[in-house]
């Protein structure tokens, strides 16, 4: 367990890289299972998704930005605070309401999504490390 706790940041980075690579490669290689996988967690509206080579990504702009923000935060070890996470959550919710009522901007959606993913990443890393370090899985099983 101690090894996994120590390797948690690297494992999370590898997982995030695989996740983001799947999103980018799916339209290029016409990977239908990847679209079906992400259909469980995203509306996949092509009008609200980035496109590659004219084909929409398997997730929307907001989801893409969150995942890439998460990955970039892990890659560059961007620090975060609880306040930053709360601000990012509020900004995302505010953008959601603004998009529904006043002004729908893909770039505003991308910015808030990037911020949310980037601020949450360090806390997820810490949570995974603490969980593995205490050997919770071993005790439960």
């Amino acid at each position, binding site marked *: 367990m*101690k090894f996994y*706790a*120590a*390797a948690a*940041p*690297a494992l999370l*980075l590898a997982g995030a890289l695989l996740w983001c690579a799947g999103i980018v490669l*799916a*339209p290029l290689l*016409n*990977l*239908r*299972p990847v*679209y*079906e*996988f992400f*259909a*469980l*967690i*995203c*509306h*996949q509206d*092509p*009008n609200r998704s980035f496109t590659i080579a004219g*084909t*929409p990504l*398997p997730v929307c702009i*907001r*989801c893409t930005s*969150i995942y890439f923000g998460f990955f970039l*935060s*892990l890659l560059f*070890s961007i*620090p*975060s*605070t*609880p306040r930053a*996470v*709360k601000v990012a*959550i509020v900004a*995302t919710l505010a953008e*959601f309401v603004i998009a529904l009522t006043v002004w729908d901007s893909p770039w505003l959606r991308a910015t808030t999504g990037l911020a949310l993913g980037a601020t*949450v*990443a*360090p*806390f*997820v*890393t*810490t*949570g*995974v*490390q*603490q*969980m*593995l*370090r*205490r050997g*919770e*899985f071993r005790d*439960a099983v």
Partner: protein
Amino acid sequence: MQCKQCGESLPENARFCFHCGAQVPEESLEPAGPPPGPPPDLDFVQPGLSGGLFLGLLSSIPIISAANCLCCMWVLAGGSMATMLLKKQQPRRILTYGDGAFAGVLSGLFGAIVATMMSIPMKILSARLFGSQQESIENMLKGMPEVEGPMRDLVMRVMSPEISVTTVLFTFISNLIIYSLFAMVGGILTILILNKKGGSLQQPPPNQFFKA
């Protein structure tokens, strides 16, 4: 307990009588109880099951499950619910991000089982409702040129009455991965919100590879 001098009733473990001031003999005092032990361990199973049932059911019911398209709302909520139930066990205890993560993972794993089991009768039901309308759905898609390629295949598959072991297995494995990850994030975010001040971790250390 009664005072041996004046007979007034006294609280247990009183050292002097409040009425006459007489000292209570030491043998009258109740022996001190055992020193307080460490706080009891948290039970993760029950909150995990409750959170999992919540997210599994809501992620299976048609129309309601569409909320999962909003950043996996029900899954995050399931992880959050498991963490709040965990907090309720010992309200004074400051939970760590690891506690929230584990509660979230458990709720996600159980929720995946519930959602997959619920998806089978839901699929049968939707087959009866939409099976006869597949031709009209195809005609509708013909009028939407932006929906093409893998997107079109996905729409047709969702509307298809086909149920197979492969489909169920794919759904189950996908749910296991997605629900456990997102419910874990929900648990961690809940800890972040619950621990307002003096939390066990004010600021996470910078990410460092291979550092315990």
